[in-house]
């Protein structure tokens, strides 16, 4: 009886009872009681530590389970019926009822949303956008022929495209992953949406968007074409952006002309921090950190999400990533995390340094 009760694996005896057992005069009982008391104190202090630890600290200590038993995706998909009225949109589908419906856009966002949710859960143990099981809300058929998709701080919204230049913005998983990642960023460093910091915000969305697509399609760094929105922009030679060669997503497009993204810091575009200036070129200059990621991932090889993705996720969720971080801050942090994860002289560290070097940051 004593044996089982004193084994800390089977039960934890309150400290006052253990103290009494220690003083009982029976050496065998006292030995077991001291050991039990010692272990239970250690257990309690560990538990207190982990209760207070940040998600990032837990990640470092490997204390974040890869697949927490309780995290299940919660999603709702709404049909705006070609209006801009999000409040009165019709519920098409939710994870509870899994209704049947006909909208291709609706089916696309379920597929893309699930691929994104799985990506963050399976690889990083992240429980949804906020790491706390947030219900994912996606709105399709927004406005008449709207050629855009956006994250409004609470939900993802997709237009059908004009049917001439753009098709539905739900057509590519990377675009859906891009929007969902804006939510992740908002819940982590909450990077400002302007100038270099805004370009980093955009870049994290493109980087995780492309990795989500690559993982869904089981493509390694060589097999992937590294294009964002290759179906959304109509025409076989066109995509919205390229991480492999920023500035070549589309060229000589009859309506859009040339993709304006730079790949290197020498060609950074100083634009006004206004609505019409793309808040200082956040969708333009993101080409630079995008290119640094591509070069790093290509040199590391294999599947981008396995090593390069781990490095970039560690930075995105690092509490030291400031809300106004610049390219050089993310450069330094990716190198630090690569060193921590793979060793100071590792191939991975060299690859990350080479990535930023080629982007001339």
């Amino acid at each position, binding site marked *: 009886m004593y044996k089982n009760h004193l084994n800390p694996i089977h039960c934890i005896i309150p400290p006052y009872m253990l103290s009494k057992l220690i003083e009982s005069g029976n050496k065998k009982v006292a030995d077991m009681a001291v050991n039990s008391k010692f272990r239970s104190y250690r257990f309690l202090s560990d538990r207190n530590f982990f209760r207070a630890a940040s998600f990032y600290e837990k990640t470092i200590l490997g204390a974040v389970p890869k697949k927490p038993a309780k995290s299940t995706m919660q999603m709702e998909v709404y049909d705006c019926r070609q209006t801009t009225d999000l409040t009165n949109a019709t519920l098409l589908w939710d994870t509870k009822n899994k209704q049947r419906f006909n909208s291709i856009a609706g089916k696309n966002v379920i597929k893309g949303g699930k691929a994104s949710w799985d990506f963050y859960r399976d690889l990083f143990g992240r429980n949804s956008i906020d790491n706390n099981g947030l219900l994912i809300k996606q709105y399709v058929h927004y406005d008449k*022929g709207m050629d*855009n998709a*956006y994250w409004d701080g609470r939900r993802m919204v997709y237009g059908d495209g004009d049917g001439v230049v753009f098709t539905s913005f739900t057509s590519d998983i990377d675009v859906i992953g*891009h929007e969902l990642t804006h939510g992740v960023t*908002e819940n982590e460093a909450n990077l400002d949406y302007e100038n270099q910091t805004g370009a980093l*915000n955009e870049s994290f969305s493109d980087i995780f968007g492309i990795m989500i697509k690559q993982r869904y399609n089981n493509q390694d760094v060589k097999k992937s074409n590294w294009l964002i929105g290759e179906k959304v922009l109509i025409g076989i030679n066109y995509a919205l952006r390229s991480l492999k060669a920023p500035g070549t*997503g589309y060229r000589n497009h009859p309506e859009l002309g040339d993709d304006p993204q730079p790949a290197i810091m020498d060609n950074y575009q100083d634009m006004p921090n206004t609505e*019409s200036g793309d808040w200082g070129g956040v*969708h333009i200059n993101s080409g630079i950190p995008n290119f640094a990621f591509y070069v790093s991932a290509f040199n590391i090889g294999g599947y981008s999400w396995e090593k390069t993705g781990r490095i970039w996720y560690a930075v995105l969720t690092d509490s030291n990533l400031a809300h106004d971080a610049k390219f050089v801050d993310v450069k330094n942090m990716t190198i630090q995390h690569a060193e921590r994860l793979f060793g100071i002289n590792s191939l991975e560290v060299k690859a990350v340094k080479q990535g930023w070097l080629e982007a001339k940051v």
Partner: protein
Amino acid sequence: MKIKLIRTGGFIPITKMAEVEVNFTDKELVRLIEVIKPDPSAQRIKDGNYYQLNVGTSSTPVDLEKVPEEYNELFSKLKNSMKIVK
């Protein structure tokens, strides 16, 4: 007078524009612009679109969700006829 509706921003930043001839009085225009002024404290929408109204040489940001009912048809037409500015 001619009014021009311009849209900027988006997942890839493109500019779209449409214009129409209207018979607004100056007073009516000032009142309309006041009503459809965007909330200055509004959060920046990631990949969001923004609209502005140009009259002559002056330009003002507008929130199309605030357009009063009597102007809905006009703004819908304008919005639907916007073309990409090359």
